[in-house]
């Protein structure tokens, strides 16, 4: 898409203009966040077609309900909340026999996720091409359960705060924290299989 003359304009001003019916202003907001929302939707739904639907539904809903956006959070956070809800709805619909609930009780015992303890290469990114690396990161994240995945994606990929993540997912702050810890440890373990230093053990560093 062509670079718009609105590219440098402040977000809150764009929101105000969009609310007044300025289509270009809303399109500029879409342009700013569509990539992140698409990535988020793919991570949460783990399905390309669903992610495309979520992307579209998210911005249509955002447009429709723009007058409900109060400006007490960032516009992006508000859109993320819509996107997460749409994505989770997709997951629920896909598993009609087994509903996905973010409130499910989960085992937070950390002992099971620290089996693989090995130091990494100094610069593991250099061992893989950009595409290979993205493939590894995607595979690792896909293997997490939706409850962990959503928290990790919002906190560590989209860089939302703990409070914003809790709000977007309808979880308590302690629940976000315990799920984030679990997700980080699980991913660490999975990545270690790819990134560990060859022929080395944990004690070599000490």
């Amino acid at each position, binding site marked *: *898409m062509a670079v718009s003359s609105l590219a440098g304009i402040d977000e809150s001003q764009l929101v105000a203009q969009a609310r007044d*019916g300025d*289509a270009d202003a*809303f*399109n500029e907001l*879409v342009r700013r966040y*569509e*990539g*992140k929302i*698409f*990535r988020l939707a*793919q991570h949460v739904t783990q399905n390309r077609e669903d992610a*495309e639907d979520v*992307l*579209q539904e998210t*911005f*249509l809903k955002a*447009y*429709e309900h723009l007058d409900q956006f109060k400006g007490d959070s960032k516009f992006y956070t508000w859109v993320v909340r819509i996107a997460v809800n749409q994505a989770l709805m997709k997951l629920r619909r896909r598993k009609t026999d087994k509903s996905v609930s973010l409130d499910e009780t989960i085992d937070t015992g*950390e*002992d099971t996720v*620290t089996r693989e*303890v*090995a*130091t*990494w290469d100094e610069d*593991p*990114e250099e061992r893989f091409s950009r595409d290979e*690396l*993205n493939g590894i*990161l995607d595979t690792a*994240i896909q293997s997490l359960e939706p409850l962990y995945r959503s928290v*990790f994606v919002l906190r*560590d*990929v989209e*860089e939302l705060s703990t409070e914003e993540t809790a709000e977007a997912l309808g979880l308590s702050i302690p629940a976000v*924290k315990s799920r*984030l*810890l679990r997700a*980080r*440890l699980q*991913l*660490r373990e999975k*990545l*270690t299989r790819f*990134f560990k230093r060859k022929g080395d053990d*944990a*004690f070599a*560093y*000490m």
Partner: protein
Amino acid sequence: MLTCKDFLHELSEYLDENVDAELRSKLERHISECPNCWVIADTTRRTIRIYKGMDPYPIPAEVEGRLMRALEKKMADKKRTQ
């Protein structure tokens, strides 16, 4: 003395620099004495960093085209009803 289990429990908050000075020094003392926890802390920190650097997915042109057309239609419908 902190156990490894205590250390793991605080790991996220430690990496996010959300712990007070007293707890921080206890945690740092633990990793200076426990190679396993040191490795887990180091590789978890790098796990977080590597995901932070992930680029947003470029949206395929046809997907973006569909989104823009759907929005255009919605905007036109809205105008008509006003």
